[in-house]
């Protein structure tokens, strides 16, 4: 198995709160990796540090063999890590198609000069971007809403659109922050298929999720965070039976038995 991402001793403190302490984990190419833990365990903070939105206080990330720049989100995207958000953050007033096209920004090069002169390169690039955006909308199953302003899409479709936008950045690692939040059983089922499809197409997936059934059914390996520390990392079946994990979720800890 080839390692895609290695987090080494990541720490992040907000004032008096140690949101992450000494978190190390390894994600292998081609797997679906779950990151779970109780509310406030530091899962989303981990995503924020990984994607460059926050600068870690300690530790670093090695992605595809070289270190990730910290504090420069657009560079991290350029290296091949894309994410979605726990609370949907689309460009609300752009159409679905434009959202996906905006996601493709990092993979296109037309500068202000090309844009002003509309030279052949720019027009060709724009045509390919549009084509690719339609493809991705089709891929997540919302092609018919291409020209709908994204805030008018249904909740489930907005989630799909966020995934399409993230895929437009052509990531090697797709980080999904609670993609099933607020979804009904049917939608969750469709989401599961979509994630499997994405993995089969060669993109490694990292998943924060509360829906334990979804995580256990989908993930190859799972890490558990509690109060900013990693307390377990293994295949779902093992993690599920881990004492520390059970204690973290049910409260109390071993001594409370």
């Amino acid at each position, binding site marked *: 198995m080839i390692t895609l991402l290695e987090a080494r001793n990541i720490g992040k403190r907000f004032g008096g709160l140690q949101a992450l302490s000494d978190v190390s984990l390894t994600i292998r190419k081609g797997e679906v990796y779950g990151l779970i833990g109780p509310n406030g365990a530091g899962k989303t903070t981990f995503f924020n540090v990984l994607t460059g939105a926050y600068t870690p206080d300690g530790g670093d990330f090695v992605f595809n063999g070289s270190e990730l720049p910290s504090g420069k*989100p657009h560079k991290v995207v350029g290296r091949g890590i894309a*994410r979605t*958000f726990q609370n949907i953050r689309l460009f609300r007033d752009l159409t679905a198609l434009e959202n996906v096209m905006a996601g493709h920004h990092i993979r296109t090069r037309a500068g202000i000069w090309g844009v002003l002169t509309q030279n052949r390169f720019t027009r060709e690039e724009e045509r390919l971007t549009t084509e690719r955006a339609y493809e991705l909308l089709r891929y997540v199953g919302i092609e018919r809403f291409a020209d709908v302003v994204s805030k008018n899409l249904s909740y489930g479709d907005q989630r799909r659109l966020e995934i399409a936008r993230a895929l437009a950045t052509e990531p090697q690692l797709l980080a999904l922050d609670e993609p099933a939040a607020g979804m009904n059983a049917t939608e969750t089922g469709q989401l599961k298929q979509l994630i499997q499809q994405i993995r089969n197409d060669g993109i490694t997936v990292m998943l924060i999720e509360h829906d334990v059934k979804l995580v256990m059914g989908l993930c190859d390996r799972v890490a558990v965070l509690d109060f900013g520390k990693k307390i377990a990392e293994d295949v779902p079946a093992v993690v599920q039976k881990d004492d520390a994990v059970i204690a973290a979720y049910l409260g109390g800890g071993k001594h409370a038995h």
Partner: protein
Amino acid sequence: METLIQQFINGLVIGSVYALIALGYTMVYGILGLINFAHGDVLMVGALVALQTMLFLMGMAPGMSPLVMLAIALAVAMVICMLLGFTMERLAYRRLRNAPRLAPLITAIGVSFLLQTLAMIIWGRNYHTFPQLLSTTPLQPIPGVFVTPVQIAIVVVSALLMVGLLLLVNRTRIGRAMRATAENHRVASLMGVDTNAVIALTFVIGAALAAVAGVMFASNYGIAHYGMGFMPGLKAFTAAVLGGIGNLGGAMLGGVVLGLVESFGAGYIEHLTFGFLNSSYQDIFAFIILGLVLIFRPTGLLGERVSDRA
């Protein structure tokens, strides 16, 4: 009847200039939520740099065709103003991006004073005659109605620039990145947009438009001096608010509407006040409008429609 048409034409001309300046205000507001009060002074710098370039060219190459001279002067003014816009953002506003809103606002006023004072040091306190390179002989399309070639050029060039800007913002990769950044900086950067570059570019484009507007303004009145940016700056800000600040179409509409109101107001104020006020009071109209809009329709004519933000 002639007066009516004449005032309409005058209003359209000055309105086009307001619209160009207002676009700079509204683009920066749309993307940063900042009112860049130094924007009017960028216009002044544009006009004075163009003036300086023309004088230089007239000395160096007296035989040069006026049109070529004007084009060179305009290009130089645009480049200098773009650099100025870039520098302003980089040195003054970027480090205040996460500061309370009042801090960048006050800074903008400071930058405005700084630019005026620098211009005063460089070009002195006197009014300079702005060379008229286009013919100022008025045409008479209708008997009794006068239009100068300068005025025609102002309206045509403004219209072209505005259409160009709309296409840039709504149809291109760069424009998409601008709209994405306007909606949400953090998410845009997480989707791979270099938001610092996009914001810098917004200032640069606004400054280029202001440079053009400055040359037009100075050509229209035949005069340039260090304080000339203040009033059109305020008027254009009013135009941007009138149209709905943050909204590109709104800035254009607001500029033209304001120009027309002002022009008709100046033409008829004597009749309306039975001779008590004359046309030199025309400036009151802009600020009456600003007051009324802020009281009764703070979102402006077209509203702060985020979809058109940039």
